[in-house]
């Protein structure tokens, strides 16, 4: 369980997160919706400790994570699949996957086992195991980014806009993978603009608008159309 309370992050003088509070429950898919510029990616980067929080708290099972370094966050099991994939373009697919296991280098046998498991889950990556990651298609790179994160044996998987820039048919494929991960009982925090798709798979959702969580609940709780509209456009235009 990840508890986020009163989290504030800013870029210089511009506040991006203005006191965000939400829970990511174990063994479920929590989804964060919101229009462009609401602060969704800022929240992910703050959770990953790449951006420094100004104040507030991020607790995993009671342990405070604010102040930890990015590599320590990964070691604790909070692993990010960043927006726009961010693979290592000039390294082979296999090396990209090994790179995901940096935090557990000592455990060579387990890493090798996990590599086999991940390649079984993503047969397309096995086909391209020796290819440079930069030569993969967008969808394949997204799969690689997810696979790389799995190599870290995450307790919580943070997915930042996995559908960005992908063709609709590929988006469906990616969401099927996310759904399968959820069904295995993994804890997933999904940040998505594609609200329709995300709500199909979410157990809980929050709506982030202008740096604040304005709404939260279960997908069935609310009027679907209004939520979608607010997720894409924000409150002002919806009202």
């Amino acid at each position: 369980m990840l508890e986020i309370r009163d989290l504030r992050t800013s870029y210089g003088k511009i506040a991006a997160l203005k006191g965000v509070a939400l829970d990511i429950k174990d063994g479920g898919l929590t989804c964060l919706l919101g229009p462009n510029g609401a602060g969704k990616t800022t929240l992910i980067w703050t959770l990953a400790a790449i951006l420094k929080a100004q104040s507030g708290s991020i607790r995993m099972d009671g342990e405070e994570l604010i102040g930890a370094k990015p590599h320590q966050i990964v070691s604790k099991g909070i692993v990010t699949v960043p927006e726009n994939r961010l693979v290592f373009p000039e390294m082979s697919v296999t090396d990209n996957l090994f790179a995901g296991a940096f935090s557990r280098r000592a455990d060579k046998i387990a890493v090798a086992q996990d590599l086999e498991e991940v390649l079984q889950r993503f047969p397309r990556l096995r086909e391209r195991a020796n290819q440079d990651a930069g030569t993969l298609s967008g969808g394949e790179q997204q799969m690689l980014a997810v696979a790389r994160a799995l190599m870290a044996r995450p307790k919580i998987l943070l997915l930042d806009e996995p559908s960005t820039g992908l063709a609709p048919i590929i988006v469906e494929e990616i969401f099927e993978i996310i759904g399968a991960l959820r069904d295995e009982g993994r804890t997933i925090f999904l940040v998505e603009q594609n609200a329709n798709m995300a709500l199909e798979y979410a157990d809980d959702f929050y709506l982030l608008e202008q740096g604040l969580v304005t709404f939260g609940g279960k997908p069935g709780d609310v009027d679907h159309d209004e939520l979608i509209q607010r997720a894409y456009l924000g409150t002002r235009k919806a009202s």
Partner: protein
Amino acid sequence: MVDFIQNTLDGIALGSAYALLALGFTLIFGVMGRLNIAYGPCIMIGVFAGAGVYSDLTQSIVMIFVATLAGTILASAYVERVSFAAIRADAALASMVSTFAVWMQLEEIVAHLFPARTYAFKELGHLSLIEAGPFFLRQESLFMLLVTLAVLLGLALVLGRSHFGLELRALTDSRRAAIISGINVRRIIFLTFLLAAMIGGVAGFMIAMSDGQVTPKFGLWATMKGLVAMVIGGLASLRGAVLGGMLLGIIEAQAQWYFGASVREILVYAILFAALILLPRGILGGPHTVWRS
């Protein structure tokens, strides 16, 4: 034609030293996206440490080598702490200016400790030539080539097989992806500085041995040669660094033979200008090598 081939042979030997210097620059540039101008002066500290041991303590070639390596590593660790670790990642210019300041400091330290400026270094000795038909290879050239090959082989093993090597390559490829994947970036940067220092120390040692002396100008010389070779070969490409070093050595040797020593440097820098204009990313610099996030 015989002259041309002979010059090429000589150039490759000289170029192998340049290649090592370029590799040091490239490794550091790769993980940091910043230039360490003080790389040459760090090696100068090393060769003066070696010269000091040679003149005051012992003739032992092993001890002189150890002193050269240790001096280079210590100076590099100092540069990394002061000019890179202590300065924010997004302040590249501040880092570069800081390395200039460290450079001046290192030169002053040497000037105080070694007031005579030029000091003898253990010489390899001008031994017999190895001849093959009309061509010959000096033994010191062969020595440089073999040492360079050994370093390249070792480096390939470290980068290709070790965990540190994978982390270094990952950080060079994409800093953001490396952070996301849980790499301890600061640790890898520090280790990369040490690796570059070891390569520089070996290069400095073999250059000083073949010259038989060291001067405080060594720092400037090493930085210039390494930088030029790196830019010709390709920024952030290790193969490019080796190629650039070899090319620079060959061009210098040809220029020296056909036009004389005074024209050599002018020609070399003209070639650098041409390389910067025609191939701003160097010969082997790929599309990713200039892009940094």
